[in-house]
Each structure stands twice: as structure tokens, then as C-alpha cells.
């Protein structure tokens, strides 16, 4: 059991690449953790402790080596009202509960439910996430002096242009260069702009184990449970999506159920060390792979160095101008966005585009990715049902000698095509015998069975002899279980209302 978490090939097969990429990721995690703490309305130290604990624990218990988990924007957005109305301690409790729910999801193998989430919804989720991360930066850019705009633009300029410098361009992480340059500039020129230190407390010690200071009663559970459910769902969704992205990039497999359990364990530990709930991050995981990270070691190094730097360099971190962070977060937002999906809008079917855009719109308006995914999956299912319902037709032929009308039903009969099925019979026709051939039809649910019953009853009422033939195994089991047409006493019941 424990040994599977300590697989040598997943830890030490890419040592150099993992350490370097882990450092790059650690540097990029700091601004993100601070930014997401600000979104959630807590001190930066809550996000920084969370990022440390998530990354380090997921390194051991996650199901996808090389994937980065930390405090994330998707999760931060879900906590805003909880923090505002009840405070940090309730957030920590909710984080622990989130972890418990996620562990249960892993235990019951709910990772497989991801197969119900169509590609269009995944793309919508990712794009919505990118937009939310961008929107979260807007408060930092409103009601400020022009200096902030200038600094942010300069920061973005460094991020995107620095890598073009030969040699050092691909050796020094450009977000780090941005932070250093802007911080030095602001510090020595003395521009009066907001810095990280203005946003709240930074960590000055290593995290310690603490039990959230809340009353342990039913009332508390009622407060945190709705938040924990949302957090658990969004956390698993983003983690599993990110795992798929990393799987594709590295052409390797991951264990989705182990990832669910791992996210749970990491969140429980995070809650007890004073951190906010987190999950896997798309942007950081892509940066990790791009920088050469592949193994569990990269995730561990990222978390470990993050903490070392934050604890020992907190004085320096507090003078970083917020504009530098905003520039980096805009970069993360741009990198998270699925640009290919916009280019493909023209070529994809309209229903797919509607699903994607609906997911984005719902998320942007509710700030809840779980709701967006719910609406997306619902829409996609309806579109799918509608498509399948087209695959049904009723062919009829008439045999004069026996005065027999034969209906041959071909295709899928279910809730969405049941009415169409009913209407495809000619009830006005006067005929002695009617044969309904179902050998090419599939009956999927009681709506279909009910429609067939209605058809048979109606035809018999008109005085015809109705005969059903050739219903295959699948149809006949459903008809047997739900059907009433051949039980007279049941027919009485149905006809009673007419």
C-alpha cells in the first residue's frame, strides 16, 4: 500500500530536470499563491502555506507525477463568501472537510465520472478559469495611478521578451526577472505603489499543526458543507483535467482515482497546517513540463523551495510591487486559455460551441466552476439526446389480401423520441390486423415503453388486432418489466381516465 507511493522510477528518473523545473515552478507559485489569497480575502500566508503543503504532499500521494498542485484561483473564488461571513477558521475546517469528501470520491472511484464531462465542457472550464484569473486582477488595476499600468505593462514586456535574449533567456525564468527588475525599480526610484506587504501577513515561521478553532457541532457542519462540496468538486475537476493535459503532454498514464484520494489527503493536511483548499493547476503544470519536470521530485522541490524562500526572504517578498504580480497573473491567464478552441469555433458544430460558451458564461457570472460544468454537461446531454432521437423512423406497408398493416420501427426509442414514435402511427386508418415489428428498434426507457403501450391500446380501441413481433432481447426485457399492454386489468387503469 505505502510502497506504491514511493516508486523509485517516479521519483528519481529525471533528477536534474526535476530540480531545475521545481525551482522555476516554486518562483512562479509565490506570486500566484499571494494573488489567490487576496482573491479569497485571507492573508498571503494562508495561500503560501497551502501551496507548500499541497505541492509537497501531492508529490507523495498524487496519481500524476509531474503535476503541480497548490492554492488555486478556481478554489479561491469559491471561498470568498465563507471567509467574508465566517472568517478564516471556518475556511480551514471547510478545507479539511473538502479533503474528506475528495478521499471518499477516490475510495468510491468517482474519477470515472469524468467520462460524463464532454470535451466542450472541459474547454469551457479551462477558458472560464482563464477569464476568472484575469478578472481577479482588475481590482488591482482600478482606481490606481498611471504608474501601476506602466509597471504592469513593463512586467508583461519582460515576461514575453526576455526569453528571446540568447542563452540567458532560456536559463532564467522571465517571471523571476520581472519581479526582480520591478521590485528594484520601485524600491530605488521610490514610486508609491501598493506592495505585497500591504496585502496582509506573510509567513515568518514554518507551518505548524493546528486544529481549526471552531465549535464542533451540526450548525458548523451546515455552514461549511455546501462550500466543501463545491470545493471538492471543482478541485477534483480541475485536478483530473490537468492530469489529462499532463498525460497528453508527456504521453504517459496517470491513476485518476489515486489522484482523487491524493487531493483529499493533501487538502486535509493543508487544512490542519493553516492553508486554504487547493488543487492541481493547469498553468503551473504546463510550466513544469515545459521546464523539463517529469517526476514526483519536481512537485516536491517546488513546494519545498517555495516555503524556504517565503520564510527566509519574507522581508524582500513584502516589497514586491503588486503590479509585478498582476503581470504574472495575466500571463497565467493567457497561458491557461485554450487558444486552439477559439480558432476551431468556426469548424465545430454549433451545439458544441453552445455547450462551451454556455459553460464559460455561467462560470463568469456565478464565479462557480462547478455550476458551469453542471450546465455544460446538462446542455451537452440534451444535445446528445436530441441527436440520437433523429435516429428513429417508422416504415409501414399494407397487405391487401389479409387486410394487414405492418409497421416496422427502426432506431432508438426513448424519452426524446417517444412522441415522434407515437405520432408515426396512422390511427385513422381502418384496418383489420396491425403488426408492429420491433426487431430493429431499441427501447431504452419507460417513456418508450409507455409510448408503445399507448399505441397498442389506441389501435385496439379502434377495433384492430394488434400483434407485436420481433422485439429483441433488450427491448423485451424493458417491455416485460414496465409494459402493461397485455394485462387487461392494467389497461383498465390506464383507460379509466379517458
Amino acid at each position, binding site marked *: *500500500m*505505502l*510502497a*506504491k507511493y*514511493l516508486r*523509485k*522510477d*517516479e521519483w528519481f*528518473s*529525471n533528477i536534474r*530536470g526535476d530540480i*531545475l*523545473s521545481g525551482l*522555476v*515552478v516554486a*518562483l*512562479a507559485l509565490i506570486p500566484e499563491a499571494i494573488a489567490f489569497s487576496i482573491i479569497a480575502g485571507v492573508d498571503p500566508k494562508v495561500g503560501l502555506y497551502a501551496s507548500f503543503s499541497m505541492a509537497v504532499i501531492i508529490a507523495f500521494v498524487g496519481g500524476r507525477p509531474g503535476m503541480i498542485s497548490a492554492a488555486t484561483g478556481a478554489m479561491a473564488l469559491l471561498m470568498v463568501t465563507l471567509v467574508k461571513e465566517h472568517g478564516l477558521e471556518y475556511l480551514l475546517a471547510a478545507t479539511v472537510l473538502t479533503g474528506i469528501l475528495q478521499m471518499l470520491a477516490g475510495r468510491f472511484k468517482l474519477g470515472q465520472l469524468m467520462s460524463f464531462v464532454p470535451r466542450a465542457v472541459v474547454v469551457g472550464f479551462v477558458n472560464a478559469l482563464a477569464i476568472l484569473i484575469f478578472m481577479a486582477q482588475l481590482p488591482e488595476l482600478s482606481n490606481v495611478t498611471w504608474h501601476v499600468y506602466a509597471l504592469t505593462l513593463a512586467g508583461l514586456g519582460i*515576461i*514575453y521578451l*526576455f*526569453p528571446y535574449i540568447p542563452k540567458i*533567456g*532560456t*536559463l*532564467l*525564468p*522571465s*517571471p*523571476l526577472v520581472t519581479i526582480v527588475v520591478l521590485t528594484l525599480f520601485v524600491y530605488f526610484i521610490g514610486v508609491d505603489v501598493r506592495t505585497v506587504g500591504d496585502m496582509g501577513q506573510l509567513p515568518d515561521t514554518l507551518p505548524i499543526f493546528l486544529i481549526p478553532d471552531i465549535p464542533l457541532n451540526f450548525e458548523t457542519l451546515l455552514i461549511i458543507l455546501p462550500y466543501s462540496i463545491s470545493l471538492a468538486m471543482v478541485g477534483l475537476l480541475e485536478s483530473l483535467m490537468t492530469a489529462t*493535459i499532463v498525460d*497528453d*503532454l*508527456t*504521453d*504517459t498514464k496517470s491513476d485518476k482515482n489515486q489522484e482523487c484520494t491524493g487531493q483529499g489527503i493533501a487538502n486535509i493536511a493543508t487544512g490542519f497546517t493553516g492553508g486554504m483548499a487547493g488543487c492541481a493547476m493547469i*498553468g503551473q503544470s*504546463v*510550466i513544469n*513540463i*515545459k*521546464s*523539463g*519536470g*517529469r*517526476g514526483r521530485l519536481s512537485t516536491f522541490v517546488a513546494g519545498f523551495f517555495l516555503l524556504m524562500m517565503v520564510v527566509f526572504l519574507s522581508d524582500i517578498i513584502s516589497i514586491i510591487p503588486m503590479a509585478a504580480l498582476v503581470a504574472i497573473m495575466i*500571463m*497565467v491567464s*493567457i*497561458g*491557461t*486559455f*485554450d*487558444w*486552439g478552441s477559439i480558432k476551431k469555433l468556426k469548424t465545430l458544430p454549433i451545439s458544441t460551441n453552445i455547450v462551451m460558451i454556455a459553460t464559460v458564461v455561467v462560470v463568469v457570472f456565478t464565479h462557480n466552476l462547478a455550476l458551469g460544468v453542471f450546465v455544460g454537461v446538462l446542455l451537452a446531454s440534451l444535445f446528445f439526446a436530441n441527436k440520437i432521437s433523429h435516429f428513429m423512423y417508422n416504415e409501414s406497408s399494407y397487405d391487401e389480401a389479409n387486410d394487414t398493416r405492418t409497421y416496422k420501427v427502426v432506431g432508438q426509442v426513448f424519452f426524446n423520441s417517444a412522441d415522434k414514435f407515437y405520432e408515426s402511427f396512422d390511427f385513422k386508418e381502418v384496418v383489420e390486423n396491425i403488426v408492429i415489428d420491433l426487431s430493429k428498434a431499441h427501447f431504452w426507457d419507460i417513456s418508450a415503453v409507455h409510448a408503445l403501450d399507448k399505441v397498442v391500446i389506441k389501435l385496439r380501441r379502434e377495433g384492430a388486432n394488434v400483434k407485436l413481433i420481433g422485439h429483441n432481447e433488450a427491448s423485451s426485457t424493458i417491455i416485460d418489466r414496465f409494459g402493461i399492454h397485455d394485462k387487461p386489468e392494467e389497461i383498465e387503469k390506464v383507460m379509466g381516465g379517458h
Partner: protein
Amino acid sequence: MQNIKDIKEAVFACVDGSRFSEAVCEYSLHIAKQLSLPLVLLNTIEHPNASSVTNLSGNLSLGEREDLLDELSQEDAAKNKETRTQGKELLTTLKEKVKVQGFEDVITLQRHGTLYENLKDLEEKLRVVLFGVSGMGHFAEGVEIGSQVEDIIRDIDAPIILINKEFTPIHKVMIAFNGASGSVRALEEVSASPMLAKDVKRYIVTVNKDIQKAQELSHQAKDLIQDKSLNCEYISKAGDPLESILGCIDNNDIDMLSIGSYSHGKLKTALFGSFTTKLIKNVKVPLIILK
């Protein structure tokens, strides 16, 4: 040419171009002849779990994921093409060698993925699997256990022969018997199955702290051997199992050792080490391992 799908049972020689590949092939040929089964030369193309391109710029641009996917797949494609060609060449050379020795029932098989994964997929066709104790990754380190060896021995349900030296004819085989289910099967494999020729001398060694216990085990082993015409010698020793077994191998010029494998769970093994692993590390002759 025969297809792997039509083969019910075969001797599998796993070759990767490392230093024991030729020996693996020769031992496999010998066993295949003994068992009158087809010989499959298996080469797996492992996906390296490491990166070669270093870009530490740490930024994300529009469409970064698509670009990165393109870049990484091109990199992999180039690498895989190269290993594929090398593997093909190796398989062709070895196949020729086998045919030159008058054995025609040989097919080559090249598959993507780790050796472990592929053996798991082929599990029901495996009569015997032979591979080198250390793979490509350990070329320069002397006899070190390859990273997948333990997993394969634990999980793959087939007799496994670990090759750790050049091929020499098999005249004397030793069975380390401790009464556990694996060693009972090891005893059966080398006495009841035609894997080894009739005239090969069998040494059945039992070791225990208590010499009486060792002798009891020895009697137990004697009863298990059905074919009384085999040339068997029974040795019972008191003392440390590892040292006694290694000593017996040296004293009697043994060509192969047969044992039952890992009897403890993974965690216990990870913490306290395992007798099987110690034996694999120290023994100088090929090992027949049964679960």
C-alpha cells in the same frame, strides 16, 4: 511467418541490446528446444521518463499548450524512431543467430511500453520468460538489479529466468528448497517439466538454523520428486541461508539455481530488504524464479 496472436504458449526472450542480450537469447534457445515451444524474441521500446530539452523561461504564451505538445511529440518521435531501428536490428541479428543453429520456430516482437507492462499484456502466453538482470539503464554499473526486475518477479505469473552471465551449457542445477509454495513449484519445474534435460544433475539444498529441520525439509523434497530416475543429490545445511546457498553453488560448480520468490509484502521488503533481492544481487549463476 507466424504471428504472435496465433501463439498459445512460448518461451520469451526479452532483449534490449544491453550486455546480457545475447546470453538471454542463447539460454532461451536452449530452453525452447528442451520444451519444444516457439521462441519469441521480445524487444520493448520504453518511453523515457525524462526530458532532454531545457527551457527554463517559465512563461506561458497564447497557445502554449498546443505548441508544447507539438514540440514534445516531435522530440519523442525522433527518439522513438531511433530506438525502434536499433531494436529491429538487434532482433534481426539474434533471429539469424537462432536460425543458424537450426531452430526455425522463432518470431520477433517489438512493442511500445515498459517490459513489465508488455509481459503483463502477454501473460497468458508466457511459458518461461528470460531477461537480463540489469537493463540498458544500468549498463555501466556492474551487476545491479534493473528497476523493473522486482515488479516483474512479483506480478508476472510465469517462471522467470534471470540471466547474469554468458551462456554455458547446463549440467548441474541447484534447487533451494524451503517448503514454501514458491519453492515447491521451483522444485516441480526443474524435476517434473522437460525444461531441463534428463541427464542434468539436480542438487536439492535445504538450509535451516536447525540441522534437523533442514533434514526434514530434505525428506519433504525427496517425496515431491516423482521421477525417481533423476540424478539427484540432497544437501542439508545448518546456518545462514544466503551464505550456505552461495557456498554450495561454488563448491559444486552449479550452472543454474532455482528458487521460490518473494514471500513478503512490498512494504516489508522495502523496509527490511528481501532474501530474494539479496540472492539476485549476489548469485553468479542464472536464476529460475517461481512464485
